[in-house]
């Protein structure tokens, strides 16, 4: 019988379309469809709590993919993600709560407005590279949050704004399951878009900018245009994620978008794998579930050694930092690489090399 793991044997591509497909082998495509089907049917077998967690992971994934487009694929380090999430969330809040637009309009608009703001902050990228750009985005984070907390009349200041769940006609997306499907649909579109982005000319230009931007310019790629475009697209997705998050929790306030959120998202793409769409998803799930897992571990340990929870309860920050450093040292290409290692291992199995 065919070795279940060696899949390329016997596959011949006869036209360009087949060669450029995202998943080249029919068997792999089948498995991907199965995975998608699993996630669609998932709410029927899981409890509300798990669905809620999954929704949070999903929203984080959309934001992480956005950030990865900018940082992983185009090499522009951005520490301002938190602020862009805020812009997305607040825009949607203002459009729905103050202007009475429907969610279905406000969410894409939130994305577009965040994209414009992102592009504005991307303009300095013409003159700034690497570290300096990172620091500029950090400044953007601080300044945007300041503007949001001060501009009381528009943003409700520090009290924030209240949002309501989206609705179609009379159906309100109140339950966990309904919101999960909404999130899943948007995540699906995001993933498909991003995967295709990097098969296209624009995507290749991004990667060229990351690898050696001066050489890219010599080749005729207008690096300024593509850098700003990268900021634009990336911020669009981050804005959409922000809007989704806002409508999920039904509140936006400046405290939710602090610099630690930016650091979390950076950790997500680093842990997941820079420059990989699925890596962003793995990373987002990892970082979002980390506190949950920690809590459960502490609970179990507390059962075995009572009193240990007092010591471990403050460990969250330490574990977070430790995870980042461990991943950076041992697997800088993140979870995505680990997954590929596993796949490669099985490709050669039972041979060892």
């Amino acid at each position: 019988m065919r070795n279940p793991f060696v899949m390329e044997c016997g596959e011949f591509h006869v036209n360009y379309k087949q060669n450029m497909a995202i998943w080249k082998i029919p068997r792999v495509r089948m498995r991907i469809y199965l995975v998608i089907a699993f996630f669609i049917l998932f709410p029927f077998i899981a409890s509300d709590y798990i669905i809620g967690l999954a929704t949070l992971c999903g929203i984080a994934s959309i934001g992480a993919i956005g950030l990865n487009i900018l940082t992983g694929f185009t090499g522009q380090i951005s520490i301002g993600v938190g602020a862009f999430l805020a812009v997305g969330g607040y825009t949607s809040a203002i459009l729905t709560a103050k202007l009475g637009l429907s969610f279905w309009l406000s969410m894409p608009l939130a994305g577009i407005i965040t994209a414009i703001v992102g592009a504005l902050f991307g303009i300095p990228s013409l003159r700034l590279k690497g570290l300096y750009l990172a620091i500029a985005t950090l400044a953007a984070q601080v300044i945007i949050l300041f503007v949001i907390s001060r501009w009381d009349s528009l943003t409700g200041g520090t009290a924030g704004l209240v949002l309501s769940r989206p609705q179609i006609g009379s159906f309100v997306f109140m339950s966990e399951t309904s919101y999960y499907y909404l999130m899943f649909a948007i995540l699906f579109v995001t993933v498909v878009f991003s995967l295709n982005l990097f098969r296209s000319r624009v995507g290749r230009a991004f990667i060229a900018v990351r690898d050696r931007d001066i050489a890219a310019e010599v080749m005729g790629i207008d690096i300024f245009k593509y850098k700003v475009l990268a900021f634009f697209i990336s911020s669009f997705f981050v804005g959409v994620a922000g809007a989704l998050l806002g409508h999920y929790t039904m509140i936006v306030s400046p405290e939710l978008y602090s610099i630690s959120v930016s650091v979390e998202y950076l950790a997500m793409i680093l842990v997941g794998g820079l420059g990989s769409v699925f890596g962003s998803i793995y990373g987002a799930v990892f970082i979002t579930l980390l506190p949950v897992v920690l809590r459960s571990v502490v609970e179990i340990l507390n059962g075995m050694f009572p009193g240990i929870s007092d010591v471990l309860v403050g460990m969250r920050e330490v574990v977070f930092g430790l995870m980042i450093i461990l991943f950076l040292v041992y697997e800088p290409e993140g979870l995505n690489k680990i997954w590929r290692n596993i796949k490669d291992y099985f490709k050669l199995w039972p041979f060892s090399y």
Partner: protein
Amino acid sequence: MTFFLQMLVTGIVVGSVYALVALGFVLIYKSSNAINFAQGEFLLVGTYICLTLVASYNIPFIAAIFITLIFSALLGFIVEKIVLRPFIGKPIISMIMATIGLSSILAGFVHIIWGHETRVFPQIFSENPIQLGEIVIAPVYAWALVIVVIMLVIFSLFFKYSKLGIAMRATADDQQAALSMGISVKTIFAVAWAIAAIVSAVGGVLLGNINGVNSSLSTIGLKVLPVAILGGLDSIPGAIIGGILIGIIESLTGGYLDPLVGGGLKDVMPFIILVLILMFKPYGLFGKKEIERV
């Protein structure tokens, strides 16, 4: 006029502490080409250690400071070995994230051991304000300024005349050449980080004496970025001047602009300055322009 002078004085004192911390930051950048986002946390650890020594163990202040300096130097050494070494030569984002991860770890430890509440140093400097004409300065401010100036002088002399100092400057200039001259670059890195930790600790202790100690002290780590950029990331005099300038700007903003905006602008102003500098003079007042080669 008194109001202005009062603000100016506060600004100079706070700014000199910024200058000290920025000095450490720039030193690390100059010698090991690394950005230390954990500078604020070095400050935090140093300050809390000193606080514990003075408050819980009743060790006299001067002795406590020396012990703290030794601890900080150790911290610098350890961090350099564990966090920096693996990342030399790796892309800058790894380095940035590594120091961010480090800051998370250090902050976490501080919170576990010492909690979040604000604490105070037992009174070491007298409370009677010094009157300079119409301006009132708490003695602790004056002491802070004096100590910072002394430290800056010590460091200038160190870099100019001592063997180690010259070696550090050589390494910062050209690592390869320094290596070929027989300078142990690894030692230099370690010393640079140790010094950075030491100056942060001193800065933190001074600020802690002025106002109290709580975990928000680490935000200075972020404030140091505008200072370093203003002065030029690889310029030591730049760090000093940048620090004092930012301190004054912050203080004056607090005094004059905050009432107009409803407050809070004073903490954002250094970052607005940062953006302006990055737009018009990215290498700062004294920094060297980086030349990129393909």
